Every structure is written in structure tokens, then in C-alpha cells.
């Protein structure tokens, strides 16, 4: 039980840390912040720089916390929010399968985060070492709800920014 959760947290957590590093610092052949900011801008998350920092920080910090098993429910919730935005905006139009850039990978990552939100991080975690036993169905449901609120918040902010630009464009015409 605890070994499996440790394995799951470390693999998925470190992959998230890597993605955050790609976005923020251009680690491991990543784009870095300027390029990520332009990309987020083109996706409608405006101003792109602010969302690039937010998205990168969520992945970097959320991934590190998940790997450590520290503030595990918070880590799970913000990672669900991030993956939900990625799925809705980037991957959804590309279908299901990962080979074509579909929702598969962010869906599995979100499912892992949600699962750890319910199970808790297990014995080999900082949360447990400092005496927090954060697990169970009510907490898992809270994690899912906070994650869903984060998805809705991100999409609403994006819709607002896009609408603002389009309204201005219409006014100019």
C-alpha cells in the first residue's frame, strides 16, 4: 500500500516538476517563460505571462508537494485544476489518444492526483511524518471540488480575456 503510493507519487510528481521547469526556466530542453507566455497568450490565457507563471508554478510546486507527500490534498487539487484546463483548451480538440496529442495523458495524471487525494499519501510522506492523516472520501470529494473550481476559474478567466479582446476588436471595426 505505502510502497505503491510512494512509487506513484514520485513518478507523477517528478514528471510534473519537470513540466513546471520546462515552462518557467526552460529546463530539460523546455521553452522557458517567454515562449510559454506567448503560447499561453495564443491559447487565450491573457496576459500570457501571468498565466505562464501561474501554470508553471502549479506544476513545479504541486509536483514537488505530491512527490514529498506534503500538503497532499492541496497538491492534488491544483494539479487537477491545471490538467483540466490543459484538457479543455489544448487536448480536447485532438481527441482521446496521446499519440495525436489527445486528452489521455492529462486525464491519467488528473486521475492519479484525484486517487491520491482520496487514498492519502501513505506512510512514506511528510504529511504522515508530521502527524497528518489526510485521506478518506470526504477529503477526496473536497479535492475534486476544489480542482473543479480551479478548472472553472481558469476557463472563465480565459473566456473573459478573450471576450474582452473580441469586444475591443469589434469596437475598432
Amino acid at each position, binding site marked *: 500500500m505505502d510502497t505503491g503510493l510512494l512509487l506513484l507519487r514520485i513518478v507523477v510528481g517528478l514528471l510534473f516538476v*519537470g513540466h513546471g521547469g520546462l515552462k518557467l526556466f526552460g529546463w*530539460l*530542453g523546455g521553452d522557458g517563460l517567454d515562449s510559454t507566455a506567448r503560447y499561453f497568450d495564443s491559447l487565450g490565457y491573457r496576459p500570457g505571462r501571468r498565466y505562464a507563471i501561474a501554470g508553471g508554478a502549479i506544476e513545479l510546486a504541486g509536483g514537488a508537494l505530491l512527490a514529498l507527500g506534503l500538503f497532499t490534498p492541496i497538491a492534488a487539487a491544483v494539479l487537477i485544476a491545471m490538467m483540466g484546463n490543459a484538457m479543455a483548451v489544448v487536448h480536447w480538440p485532438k481527441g482521446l489518444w496521446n499519440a495525436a*496529442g489527445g486528452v489521455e*495523458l492529462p486525464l491519467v495524471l488528473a486521475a492519479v492526483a484525484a486517487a491520491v487525494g*482520496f487514498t492519502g499519501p501513505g506512510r512514506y510522506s511528510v504529511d504522515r511524518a508530521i502527524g497528518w492523516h489526510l485521506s478518506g472520501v470526504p477529503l477526496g470529494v473536497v479535492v475534486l471540488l476544489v480542482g473543479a473550481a480551479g478548472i472553472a476559474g481558469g476557463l472563465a478567466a480565459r473566456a473573459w480575456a478573450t471576450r474582452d479582446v473580441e469586444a475591443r476588436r469589434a469596437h475598432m471595426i
Partner: protein
Amino acid sequence: MNTGLLILRVVLGLLLAGHGSQKLFGWMGGPGLSGTAQMFESLGFRPGRAAAWAGGLAEFVGGLALALGWFTPFAAAMIVGMMGNAITAVHWPNGIWAQSGGIEFPLTNAAAALAVAFIGPGRFSVDHGLGWHLYGWKWGVVALVIGAVGVLAGMATRASAARTGSGRTQPTA
């Protein structure tokens, strides 16, 4: 705990079963058995048709069994074996990240499946309904070892195909 495992098993298991059905039956835009056999043959898994059956069944049966929580460590072993072969034969040269076809996605799948073998499928599973307790350290290691044997078998097959393949290109006197 049990709810989290159910989420993880169902999401991961059904996605993998979907991949298997693409390979075996050509469902959901997949290549079907002939297309998969050709692809596997070109990767050095020979004979390609037998390899396509093995790979497709590992994903289809392993994925469904994981989703059901039935023979869970063996389902995990099939998935670990299949994902290990995908990593070594396809994704390894492409680096880590999924965006460029790296190992990220098969690695996540393998880690999640193996984690379930250690943790167990939870209460909402066929194994639990049948009163089977196929989890914990011992069963996690069993899944890992069987999966590793599958990966080694695949690598050996490809190595021998590479030898005979290069022999075939030699002009015969």
C-alpha cells in the same frame, strides 16, 4: 482509499483497453491486427502478427482486468510488460516528454499499474468480492518481475530480429 483506487483503475484500465482494442480490432480509429502486425514487424517484434496479438491482448485484457480489479497483480504485470516494451522499442530515443513522443506517458501508465499491484485494487473490485488478497509487497514484486520478464523477452526478440535482419541484407554468395 477505495474510491481513489477505483478512479485510478477505471480511468487507466479503460484507456489501456481502448489501446488494445485499436490493435486487435481496429476500434476507435485504430490500425487493427494487420496494421499493428506490420508496425510491430518494422520495430523488430517478429513474427509481427504474434507480437500484435500479444501486445493487443496485454493491453485489452490487462486493461479490463485492472478496471475490474480482477487478478489485479497479473493485470498490472501485463501492462508493465507492454509499457516497458513500448518504452524500449518506441519512446526511448524521443526523450522524456509526451509532446515529442517521449517515455512520459507509458512510464506513467506502468507506474500507476505497478502502484495498484502494491496497494491492491481496494474494496470496489472483483478480487475483493471473491475474497482474494493479491496485494502488498509480495504481489507488487511478482507483478514487477513478470512485467520485467515480458520486457526482456521483447528486447531479446528485437535483438535477434536485428541480427537476422542485418544478415538478410548481406549479399549471399
